[in-house]
Each structure stands twice: as structure tokens, then as C-alpha cells.
């Protein structure tokens, strides 16, 4: 039954946590459907049975049973179960249980800074040295969204895919996105990954996902950000770990991002 609901039109889930969210959306919709169909059937019956021509004098008291009270309590209990059993843990997983680096370069989470600006997304990886290049808010400009200073050694291998340039992430490895914005509020949404996080200037907010399918995916902006809001599309690819290592090394060797902003 959940499969039917999922096929209702949601894009195929492509991340490890997506099925949990999808199942939850399914449970809530089943509850909604049962309540609606039940009440609606009662409603039609009542309208038909108690039309004035069939029932010329109304009954002063009406319903005497406590059925509806039990029903309300039932709904409250189910809501409580959904809340405690599903919504809170799912949320905690999404916003608190971040994958931790264990020192194994092949499985450690990859960190990426995501910057929104009118009307492009940019991504910034540390490069193979796992160290961020030096950044200064005063260096930030339209073409240097991360404000990379570009004079330090750590920044030499940083990988920057700026202004909508598609980036790549590996399959089956956690990606932690540190999301911010340089101008107005955007929202970083990857529908296929079931990831949404507002990109708010002055704040950096993390979100994480682990891709379970290779392919091309799109990032949409889910918060009105100006005249180009509807075309603020970003694209990225999920590739096999081997392919990703190769791409990463090539990008880093090419001087990555930092140098190119000089």
C-alpha cells in the first residue's frame, strides 16, 4: 500500500534516509485518507437520511453516543504515535546525527560548502588534503562566492564548482553540506534525496545525505529569492567512488577553485 502512495508522483528516492521520510508521508496520508473517507461517508449518509422531506421535525438532542469523542481521542493518540515514533526520530537523524569521520579516507564523510547567490549554487570541497583554504568575508565577490583568499597552501587543492557548475559526489558515502547564502535567503532542495535546508545569509547550516543511486540530480531553490528564483537550478552527479576519486584528483590538480579567482 505504501508503494502505491509513493508512486503518487514523488521522484524515486535516491538517498539512504529517503525511504524513512517516504514511509512517514505514506502513513500520514493513510491516516488522512481513512479519516476523510469515514467522515465523508457519514456526511453523505446524514445529508440523505435527514433531508427535510424525509424528516420533517428535527430531533432536539441528536446524537447521544460518545462515539465522536472516542474518535477524537483515537486521532490524538495516532498523532502522538506518529509524532513520538516517527517524526521526532526522523528529524533528529536529519539535523543532529551527523556522520563522524573515523580516519578512513575511503568511507569518511565528505564535507562540502554550499553557497547560494542570486541565482546560482556553488560548491566548495577541501580537496585531497582535507583542509579548507583560507576564506575571508571581504574577499567574497560574485565570482568568488566562498571568499577564498587564494594565497595559502591549504587552498591550492580546494575544489570549487562555482556559479552552477555541476559537481560530483560519490555513491554510498555520506556528504555533509554546509549551507549558506551571500545575499538573500535561498533554500537548498534536492527532491530526489529528500533534502531541504534554507540557505540563510549570516548563518551556516549543515545537512547531510548518502546517495544510493548513480545519476544526475537537480537542486532547486525552494525559497523565493528574486526575479531569477525559478531558474536557480543546480545540477550534480552521483558517480561510483572510483570515478569520483578520479574527478576529484583532476579538479584539485587543475588548481581547483582558489587559484582561478586571483
Amino acid at each position: 500500500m505504501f508503494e502505491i502512495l509513493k508512486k503518487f508522483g514523488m521522484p524515486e528516492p535516491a538517498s539512504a534516509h529517503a525511504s524513512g521520510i517516504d514511509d512517514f508521508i505514506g502513513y500520514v496520508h493513510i491516516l488522512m485518507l481513512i479519516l476523510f473517507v469515514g467522515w465523508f461517508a457519514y456526511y453523505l449518509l446524514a445529508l440523505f437520511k435527514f433531508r427535510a422531506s424525509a424528516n420533517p421535525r428535527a430531533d432536539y438532542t441528536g446524537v447521544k453516543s460518545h462515539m465522536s469523542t472516542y474518535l477524537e481521542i483515537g486521532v490524538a493518540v495516532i498523532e502522538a504515535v506518529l509524532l513520538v515514533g516517527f517524526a521526532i526520530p526522523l528529524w533528529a537523524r536529519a539535523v543532529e546525527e551527523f556522520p563522524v569521520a573515523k580516519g578512513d579516507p575511503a568511507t569518511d564523510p565528505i564535507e562540502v560548502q554550499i553557497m547560494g547567490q542570486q541565482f546560482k549554487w556553488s560548491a566548495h570541497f577541501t580537496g585531497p588534503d582535507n583542509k579548507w583554504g583560507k576564506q575571508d568575508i571581504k574577499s567574497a565577490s560574485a565570482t568568488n562566492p566562498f571568499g577564498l583568499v587564494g594565497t595559502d597552501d591549504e587552498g591550492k587543492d580546494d575544489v570549487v564548482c562555482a556559479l552552477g557548475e555541476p559537481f560530483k559526489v560519490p555513491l554510498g558515502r555520506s556528504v555533509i553540506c554546509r549551507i549558506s547564502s551571500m545575499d538573500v535567503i535561498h533554500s537548498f532542495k534536492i527532491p530526489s534525496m529528500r533534502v531541504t535546508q534554507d540557505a540563510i545569509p549570516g548563518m551556516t547550516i549543515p545537512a547531510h545525505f548518502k546517495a544510493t543511486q548513480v545519476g544526475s540530480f537537480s537542486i532547486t531553490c525552494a525559497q523565493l529569492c528574486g526575479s531569477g528564483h525559478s531558474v536557480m537550478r543546480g545540477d550534480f552527479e552521483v558517480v561510483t567512488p572510483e570515478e569520483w576519486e578520479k574527478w576529484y584528483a583532476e579538479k584539485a590538480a587543475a588548481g581547483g577553485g582558489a587559484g582561478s579567482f586571483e
Partner: protein
Amino acid sequence: MSTATSHSHAPAHGHAVDHHHEPGFWQKYIFSTDHKMIGIQYGLTSLFFLLFGFILVMCMRFQLANPEAPIPVFGKLLELILGDAAKGGSMTADLYNSFGAMHGTIMVFLAIVPLAFGAFGNYVTPLQIGAPDMAFPRLNMASYHLFFWGGVLMIASFFVPGGSAKSGWTSYSPLATVAEFGKPFNGQTMWLIGMVILITSSLLGAVNFITTIIQLRAKGMSWMRLPFFVWAQFVTGFLLLLAFPPLEAAGVLQLSDNLLHTSFFLPNGLVVSGQQLPVSGGGSPLLWQHLFWFLGHPEVYVLILPAMGIVSEVIANNTRKPLWGYRSMVYAAMSIGFLSFIVWAHHMYLTGMGTKVSTFFQTTTMMISIPSVMILTALFVSLWGGSIRFNTPMLFALAFLPMFGIGGLTGLPLGFNASDIYLHDSYYVIGHFHYVVAPGTIFAMFAGIYFWFPKMTGRYMNELLGKIHFWISLIAMNLVFAPMFIQGMRGMSRRMADGGTAYYGADDIALTLNKSITHAAVLLGLGQIPFIINLFMSIKNGRKVENDNPWKATTLDWATPTPPPHGNFAAEPVVFRGPYEYSAPGSKADFLPQDQKS
């Protein structure tokens, strides 16, 4: 007594009849202090804004179905009025955003709230509690005039350079500040000044309603004898009084950000279009959201409580039986009032909220669904055992129940934050709140108009036109809003000027639905023509009412002469019983008016 016809110029035998002579045109229609005239002023003005907001969204819907194509006929007119923003008759993305922001603002603050609270509240509340007028008639007049000029300012903002506000009806900072940065007098500035005026108007109204309901109830009208409509208005008054001031303050702060380049809502290091923004920074964009939604969520109940009030009156009257669980409905309305102040941040789940805070807000959100369900349940259960008359007001009131039900139920996956991760800011949200407000609240407003029209004019509205209006509206509303749930499920984000073409192949269902929704919206627009004809034709040509109480109702509003004169009641009413004594055992008539001794 109340079924006998009495004339509006009945011989004086009470405090209510005024002895001064007939006021002139300006005094009577423009600067009136009579709550009924002010109610009608509010009603006509807000119906105009309802139509205006609808025309804005029709332009947007055309754009969504046919991105970048010129709007037929109307596009030329737009180009004539707005110039380059509608060049060649098609909308720029900026104009789309303008219309979007103004559609929301106008529908919420200039159409629905003034219709629900200003029009029905003003006209009906004093009548139902047996008062000769509002407690502060001049304040009431001031409140309408502020509302009117606030509305004029909002419309005028379309004509300033750069066009009207275009940062959504929520006007999130920093976008609202940087959108036209450096232009001191832009659409956003006018929006903020307009909002401050509108809020002031609402505050005056709220104080007036609360005072009136507490102080001016007729003899014998104890709290639990108040019609549910009055309770709904009473709670609404408190919501407006307590929720609006934070937004008024926030509006002034944002105005200062825009004009004086302060940084209440602007953080450090903003780089806009490649330029460091010349402001000091240090502010918080989230502060605006908190202040906005602290109003924004109680505002939702400002939209819905008066609607529930109207529906309750119409349902009690047309089932010919008391409302089931009247007391529980009153307590539920009060609980909604309290809880609505502690749910606001569920609009902000994705602003980086931790588990503890979000757990608090989603728990309160689930809690507030319970009193809403209680009121809806009470209305559903009230049908059982009734003797149901299917006249036009009743059709609209009955349709409100399942339509508001859909609106409420689809709030669940948005209120739970886990599902909101995916559905946030998608078309699912648009579908959800439009079900609450359009086939929900607006249907209740229509029910109210058809129901109280005979009291206001002494004539019925036409039943056939009314039924045509009802059925077309019901079908079209569902064809417009139900497909939005599918679009949202498919991941379509809201506020996309191109209707989502940048993300989907042209053959995607989500885009196909854009076209079908637009067709349904045209149908919805056409369906309102019989209503407009009916409303104006019936004033002079409608069937005359047989007596002062044509629906055989129990509440005091029907114990007045028709239409009620200045001062309302021919004699000071005294209340002997509860509001809904229909089909009481032992009584021959199937209704016992509140002011009838036995």
C-alpha cells in the same frame, strides 16, 4: 414577537430610536458611525479586493500555463497600465513576483479578514448580542477609513518605479530590503506603510469588538447564551489585538532597514550582485521571520474562526436543531486562541532548527489540530437527526465542512517536520492553505452573504442563480486546488515564475496540470458572474421577505426590524434562553427565539 413584521420607523418606545433627522449622503454612506453601514462598507470594499486579488492570480495562472506567452486581451491592458514590466502583454519574472506578493497580501489583509471580521463582525455581532451599536462608533468609522486608505496605498504601489512589493506576502528580509536597494520610495516601502496602516485599523477594530461583546450584551445574554458566531468574533478580536503588534513593530524596523539603511534584519557580509552591501550588518534575517509568523499563525485562525462562526449559525438554522456540543465548541475556540500563539515556528522548520525546539513546535501544532477537529466534528454531528433544508446559504455552509476538512488534514504532513522536509514550500503547501481559505473560508463568507442578505435588504437573493454559483464554484475550486497536491508531491516548488519549466521536461504531469488548473480557474471566475449579478439585482428586484425572520431563526439578529434602523431594536431585547432552541420538545413551533418569553 420576532416573526411579526415591524417597520423601521416604528413609533418610539425605547432608547433605540433616534430623534434627529435623516442624515445627508456623506453622513449616511461615507462617514457613518452606524455599525451596519460600516459593515456594508467593509463588505463591498473587501469584495472588490477579493475580485482584484483574483484578477492578479488569473494573470499569474495564465503565465504558469503558458510561460512567457502574452496574455490575451488583458495583456495589452497590462502593458498600457504598467509599461515595460508587461512588455508585449507578457509578464516579466519581476511582475509575476509582484503579483504573487500582492495577491497574498490583498487576499489576506484586504479581502478575507475585512470580510470576515470587518463586514460580518460589524454587521452581525451587535445585532446578535442585542446592542444598539458598537461600543465605540467613531473608532469603528476610523477603523474602516484606515483600512480603505491602506488599501488605496497598496494599489497605488503598482505604479511607483520598480512596481509593487515583490518579495512574497511574507516579505522576508534580506530580499525585501535588497530587491530595490537604494531606491528610497519603492513598492516595498509602500507595502510596509500600507501594512502599518492596515494593522492600526485592525487593532482599533479588535478593541472595539472585545469591548462591545463584554459590555453591550442585552439583559439575560449570559456568556453561554451567546451565539457561536459571537464567540468566534470574540476570540478573533483577541488574536488580532495580541498578534498584530509584533508585525507592526517588525514593519517599522524593516522600513528603517529600507530607508535609513539600518541592519535590524541584515547580517554581516552581504554581497549582492557582486557588491558588498554598504550596511553595517549584525542583524538577523530570522528575527523578521519570527516576528512575521508570530502574527502569521494566529492570522490563520483570524481567517478561519469567523468562518466557523458563520457556518455554525447557518447549520443550526437549517438543520432545525441545536448545535451539537455547543459548549465544547466554545472551549475549543478558546483553546485555538491560546494555542495559536505557540505554533508559529512550524513555518520555519527548515531554518536550521534543532530537535528540541522543533519537537516543541510540532507538538503544539498537533495539539492545535485537536480543538479544530472538535469544532468540525461538532458541526458534522449536528447534522444527525436534523431536518435539513438545502437552500443556498446551507449548501455553502455544508460544502465548507469537507473542504475545510481537506485543508485541515493536508496540514498534518506539513505540521510533522519529518514530512515537511520534503513538502516544505512546495505546491502541496499552496493546495493546503487554499483549501482552508478558498473553499473553506470564502464558502463560509458566501453562506453568510446569502444568509444575512434578507436582513440587510428585506429581500432574498435569487435561489437559482445562487445554486448555479454554488455548484460551479465547488467543482472549479476542487479542480483548481486538488491537482496542486500532486504537483507538490512531484517536488514542484512554489513561486516559480515559469511554472517549473526549468526543472521538468515539458511533458511532465506537473506542467500539464498547470494548464488544467488554469482552465479550472477560468471556470471559477465565470462561476462568480451569477453571484455578482445576483448580489446587485436582488437589492431592488429580489423576492421580498415575508417577515422580519424569514429563516425562522432563534438569534437576536432576526428580532430586529428589516432592515434594522439606526439603533437596531424597536424595543430593548431581553434574552430568556440559549441561542439554538430549535425543535425543542413540548414546543409547537420548531424554533424558540432567544427573546421570546416562552
